[in-house]
């Protein structure tokens, strides 16, 4: 009798757990619903963190790509082709990213993938896509090694021909922040913190190198553990180091509490980070003391570009629940680059998709060039965006405001 009730309860629990898992994945099978003129359907895969800490950025990516696909369908941009998106959730985890990559490769209607958000996730996906000759365009990866090889500082070599990005790299973003701090903000003594992830550590390293070269001093450095929220020990070290600014290489879920705790410890100095902290959630998490904190982000502010007005208006009109966030414009352009490449391939093949469409789309991507949301979109010989504009933002009155835009020339 006892045994039976045990089985019943285990079964109930298992059923419960399954229900929960089902709830958990309800976002991931979400396909774009506009089916336009009929004919062939091309799926654009999207891989981004749709749940968890980084979901604010990830959902912005997904919606923006969805908007690109819908716009192409509405305009009947590629004759005979209907675009759909398939968004998968990687939760910012490299292992999930690789699973998603395998899943997208297996679906023959997928001709291009936008994503992921995290450089570390991209590392786990690149080979899977490259083996299948499936083109991947990331709106957000900034680690230089992804396009220029691990020895990018000394000898550049492109590891994967199928990987492209519309975002600028840390090789530019870190030094850009260093120049702004040293030349414009007149900060001479920095405390550098990173989260040891591919993105954060890379950013911190390129920043430190440039800041030292300019003549600034590094008062101390620290690596935090992204799993915790207690940075009090680090905050005390920052305060006692006498630094006048903190550079943080990492993302907003940690940067928010870190900024808050540094200020609470009594160090009234700004925290500056890369595009990973350029999110409204950073301000929410860092609280009132975030005023004056800075972030660099790729490109010029989307709201200020004339080319972006249409995107912002369309995004609003489409009625997405979530904001397009830091990467909206880049995601739209990434999606549109895939659409352009597909168009080229289809037109070269007499209006039909060729049998080796994936390889052809990858090849066509190299020569894609169009005026996108973020300006001219095209790729150099490594697959990096040729548009190398960056902007410094500061927190004012509880929102990010652009301070200075520029191009880093080395």
């Amino acid at each position, binding site marked *: 009798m*006892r045994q039976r009730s045990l089985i019943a309860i285990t079964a109930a629990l298992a059923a419960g*757990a399954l229900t929960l898992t089902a709830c958990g994945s309800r976002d991931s099978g979400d396909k774009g619903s506009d089916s336009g003129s009929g004919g062939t359907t091309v799926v654009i895969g999207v891989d981004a963190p749709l749940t*968890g800490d980084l979901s604010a950025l990830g959902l912005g990516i997904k919606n923006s790509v969805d908007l690109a696909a819908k716009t192409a369908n509405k305009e009947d941009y590629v004759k005979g082709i209907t675009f759909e998106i398939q968004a998968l959730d990687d939760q910012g985890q490299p292992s999930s990213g690789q699973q998603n990559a395998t899943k997208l490769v297996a679906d023959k209607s997928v001709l291009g993938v936008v994503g992921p958000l995290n450089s570390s996730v991209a590392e786990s996906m690149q080979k899977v896509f490259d083996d299948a000759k499936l083109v991947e365009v990331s709106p957000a990866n900034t680690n230089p090694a992804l396009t220029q090889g691990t020895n990018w500082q000394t000898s550049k070599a492109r590891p994967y021909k199928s990987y492209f990005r519309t975002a600028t790299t840390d090789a530019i973003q870190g030094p850009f922040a260093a120049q702004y701090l040293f030349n414009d903000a007149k900060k001479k003594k920095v405390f550098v913190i990173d989260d040891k992830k591919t993105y954060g550590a890379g950013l911190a390293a390129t920043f430190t190198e440039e800041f030292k070269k300019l003549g600034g001093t590094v008062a101390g450095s620290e690596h*935090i553990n992204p*799993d915790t*929220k*207690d940075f009090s*020990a680090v905050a*005390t070290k920052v305060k006692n180091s006498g630094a006048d600014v903190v550079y943080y290489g990492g993302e907003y879920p940690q940067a928010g509490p870190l900024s808050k705790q540094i200020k*609470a410890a009594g160090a009234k100095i700004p925290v500056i980070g890369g595009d990973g902290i350029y999110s409204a959630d950073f301000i929410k998490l860092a609280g009132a003391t975030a005023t004056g904190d800075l972030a660099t982000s790729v490109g010029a502010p989307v709201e200020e570009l004339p080319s972006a007005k249409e995107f912002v208006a369309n995004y609003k009109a489409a009625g997405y629940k979530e904001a397009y966030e830091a990467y909206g414009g880049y995601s739209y352009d990434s999606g549109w680059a895939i659409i352009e490449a597909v168009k080229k391939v289809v037109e070269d093949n007499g209006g039909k998709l060729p049998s080796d469409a994936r390889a052809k789309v990858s090849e066509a991507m190299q020569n894609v060039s169009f005026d996108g949301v973020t300006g001219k979109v095209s790729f150099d010989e490594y697959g990096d965006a040729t548009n190398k504009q960056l902007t410094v933002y500061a927190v004012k009155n509880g929102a990010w405001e652009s301070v200075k835009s520029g191009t880093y020339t080395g």
Partner: protein
Amino acid sequence: MNELPQQLVNGLLLGSMYGLVAIGYTMVYGIVQLINFAHGEIFMTGAFGALSVYLWVLPDGTTMWVALPLMLIGAILVSVIVAVGAERLAYRPLRGAPRLAPLITAIGLSLALQQAVWAWYPEAKSARTFPQIDGGPFHLGNVTIQTGDIFLFAAAPISMAVLAYFVMKTRTGRGMQATAQDPDTAKLMGVNTDRIIVIAFALGATFAAVGGVAYGLKYGQIDYKMGFILGLKAFTAAVLGGIGNIYGAMIGGVVLGVAETLATAYIADIPGMDKFGSQSWADVWAFVLLILVLLFRPQGLLGERVADRA
């Protein structure tokens, strides 16, 4: 070295939080020899319980001095309901089963609770901000104490004193001690062991709830994953202090918290060790300490006689 007092305070605060959660691990283990891995999630549900009271029960703009006691009651209610429910539905049916069965159940329960909050609590898919106490910070010499930390400073010793009184002086508390020593004999002597076990779960949940509110006040945000790492650390603290010993839980928590903080602050200053000194290495040093303690005192710092237990 002038940052030492501040770092000790940082460590003490972090450790007190570990200690509050560790009490739940140690009490449940002491009585049923179950490592309740879902305890971190009971801590988490407590924090969300407090937030719910603030958001939906209290009128907007209630001052924290009024809101805090009510939030605390809400947190304790939610945690106790979850913990007692878990005991009744998931652990009690497995009481006679081999030890591994309830252990795996606890891990499953931990995941289920996380996902339940993730799926059904409004906007819990990313971190939610927790109300803060205005005012402060306070300065004592060159030590800064945040307003939110005052709660933790007061709550940890008070909780400890209440618990000690309860276990040592009350009839139920003595029943708990008896059950911990020998459940079968305790039953023969007329102790209602089922009731005692439920009380142990409920008490552990109460302290976890206090810890959950303290976490929210200290960091200003709570999320559905907050119980996982903290639960693991609290379990470590319980082992460090001697699992089964309630004072050991608090001592173990404080030792662990201070060790982590000091490792972050000072290891890097030792010549040649600068690579191993950052916060990302603090956990490594904390566990080195755990291993060292267990090598020389396998029963933990204040451990009970393990031999009785075989």
